[in-house]
């Protein structure tokens, strides 16, 4: 029982990180119908940006308040990663619009390889540990066998930040004109253009929002695990993509829901089965969902017109 509650907490924390990344996949797929393969590496890059700014703030500028430092790091990481997201779309994806269907996917694989190797070359291949940031835990209840169920401050910060940012993001997509333009492009890009929506700008904005949320996930990942390396983008990226597909690709609540499910499955799998095969479990779920339930939980089924 205690183990179950503990794993539930861990799973939800991990799941919110996956959910944040999954939104980037699902929005891009919704609007231009491509799998942004490089998104996982954008997430990894943002973790590096966060790490470096955290070091600058704490060691050089001498900010002792971790909460303030984290907040600043989060904002800077979001801004700089957004710039990367924008630049990637501009250089690697926009010229390919109207090209054959798999060109963007292949280009995205190229961007993915470029990003992970760019970070490897510029930052070195070793794992980068962070100084301990937030270590305190709250013991929720003590089990009979001496197993304490603990909720750490880190996990609270991650879940609260995710919830707050998702609310803000939800507001932008549902209530502002930016969000309306975005949803219009999703439904029919040509029609939206005819009605005076700047489609290129809207697509850029989608990439920017996706990258910003990936930066939140990157910062949270760094906070949670305290270590990051140049090839940390691939597997979380694929898992987040799995989450997006599981929730129904193109659906925003679906992405968050899928993220939480994948996070829970991963932690419970590691706790009750074998930890070695946890990635196999995630990849198998991806394959199974795509084969048997390609529209996901909340997605619309795709109908092909002849």
């Amino acid at each position, binding site marked *: 029982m205690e183990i179950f509650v503990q794993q539930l907490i861990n799973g939800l924390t991990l799941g919110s990180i996956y959910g944040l990344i999954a939104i980037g996949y699902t929005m891009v797929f919704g609007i231009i119908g491509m799998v942004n393969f490089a998104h996982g590496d954008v997430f990894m890059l943002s973790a590096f940006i966060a790490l470096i700014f955290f070091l600058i703030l704490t060691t050089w500028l001498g900010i002792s308040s971790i909460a303030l430092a984290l907040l600043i790091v989060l904002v800077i990481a979001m801004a700089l990663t957004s710039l990367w997201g924008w630049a990637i779309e501009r250089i690697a994806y926009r010229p390919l619009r109207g090209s054959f269907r*798999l*060109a963007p996917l292949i280009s995205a694989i190229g961007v993915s390889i470029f990003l992970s190797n760019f970070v490897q070359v510029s930052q070195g291949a070793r794992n*980068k540990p962070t100084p301990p940031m937030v270590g305190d835990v709250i013991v929720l209840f003590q089990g009979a066998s001496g197993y304490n169920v603990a909720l750490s401050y880190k996990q609270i910060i991650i879940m609260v930040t995710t919830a707050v940012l998702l609310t803000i993001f939800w507001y932008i997509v549902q209530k502002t004109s930016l969000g309306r333009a975005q949803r219009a492009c999703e439904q029919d890009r040509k029609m939206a253009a005819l009605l005076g929506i700047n489609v290129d700008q809207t697509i850029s904005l989608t990439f920017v929002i996706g990258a910003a949320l990936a930066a939140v996930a990157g910062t949270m990942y760094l906070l949670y695990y305290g270590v990051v390396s140049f090839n940390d983008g691939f597997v979380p990226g694929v898992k987040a993509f799995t989450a997006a597909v599981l929730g129904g690709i193109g659906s925003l609540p679906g992405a968050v829901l899928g993220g939480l499910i994948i996070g829970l499955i991963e932690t419970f799998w590691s706790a009750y089965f074998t930890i*070695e095969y946890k990635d196999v479990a995630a990849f198998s779920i991806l394959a199974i969902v795509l084969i048997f339930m390609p529209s996901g939980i909340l997605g619309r089924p795709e109908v092909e017109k002849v």
Partner: protein
Amino acid sequence: MNAPPIASTSAEQSAVPSRFDLRAALKDSFIAALIMLGLSIPILAYKTDQNGAQLFLTPRWGLVAIMCAIIFGLRLLQHAFMATRAARQALPDPHQATEPVHAEPSAYQRVSRFAIPFFLGIALAFPLLVYVVQGGLNESRYWVDLGILILTYVMLGWGLNIVVGLAGLLDLGYVAFYAVGAYSYALLSTTFGLSFWICLPLAGILAAFWGMILGFPVLRLRGDYLAIVTLAFGEIVRMVLINWTDLTNGGAGISSIPRATFFGLPFTADEGGFANTFGLEFNGMHRMIFLYYLILALALLTNFVTMRLRRLPIGRAWEALREDEIACRSLGINTTNTKLTAFAIGAMFGGFAGSFFAVRQGFVSPESFNFLESAIILAIVVMGGMGSQIGVAIAAVVLVGGPEMLRNLDFLKAVFGESFDPNEYRLLIFGMGMVAMMVWRPRGLISEREPSVVLKERKAISGSFVKEGHG
């Protein structure tokens, strides 16, 4: 369909005035440099170094300044170039076929008539050429080794070409079959002591079998989804190889795999060895040259089988499937069988190549079969112009041999300092190259098609008329 793919960059070009406006160009280049500055903070500007458990930062603003200057210069050049090009009449790119069907044989066709025997001759005589140029067997070791490496990728590219180029099924997990082939040989030979010549067909059959097993669930999938599921399968195979330590020895891999023999004669110095039997002086290079011809033969076999299959009903069904699956089905083609044979035959050649890899290395480990390997093979196929056999071979030479050449350029060391190792930047350039390829020549190096079936005369078909990888 008729729109040439190049037209997608027109948005960028139309933003540039036809006459070169220096002020606007300078301003735009300055903005580009500013964006570069934003991108390079902090990843380029600060390097994290480790001192014990403590990380510390080393500023590198000089590098950032150089990068920004390079971007500024490149952007300015691009403006100047585009202005001059716009001033001239916008001539169609002669290399990219713009007309749907050429009445006359194209330049490519005319060249290919001589080029193919020429390249084949070079490939056949390569060890001899290297021997003459380098002046000795031992001196030519590096070149023969490089030749073997390139030919392995040529073979993998041709194998994947069946799946991606002909049947239009985008497979991102091709390396799984390569791994199946390599592990088949490694396990069969170390456990049962079977020789390479028995294991080679067995490895092919096993890989084809796996191609069917992995192909069966993905029959309904198309395009991007198919790509992602095959990627997942590739990763699952690798993770099982890592974690199933009883069978595969895990991440440590399987070592001391028996070497290939010359039809039963081992390449050893003692009595009964290859050198002894033929009365030659023993040299380790004999084995290398043998391996070179072995992989050349395997690669040519792949090519030959593909070319023959294209003329058979099954090959035509593959190409029809690539163009339009629904039309295929309504015309009575069994799409299930067509897709499965494509997966199985593609996988079989992957298995042969894997088996060869194991016998060459004498060692296999799961790390040789990661996703990057799949991406490189796919890049070879895409860059070659999916479906073009000679294009794949050229792309393999460029993508695999190119970085090796980079390593030999000494003047790069003079520019960037002694510690400069181009191999570090290999994948960086590779990633950029993949993007650049898609932006400039999405149809690959050889974008024209040889029709499989002709009525009177052979006419080249523009690549823009061919659908690729709709799944």
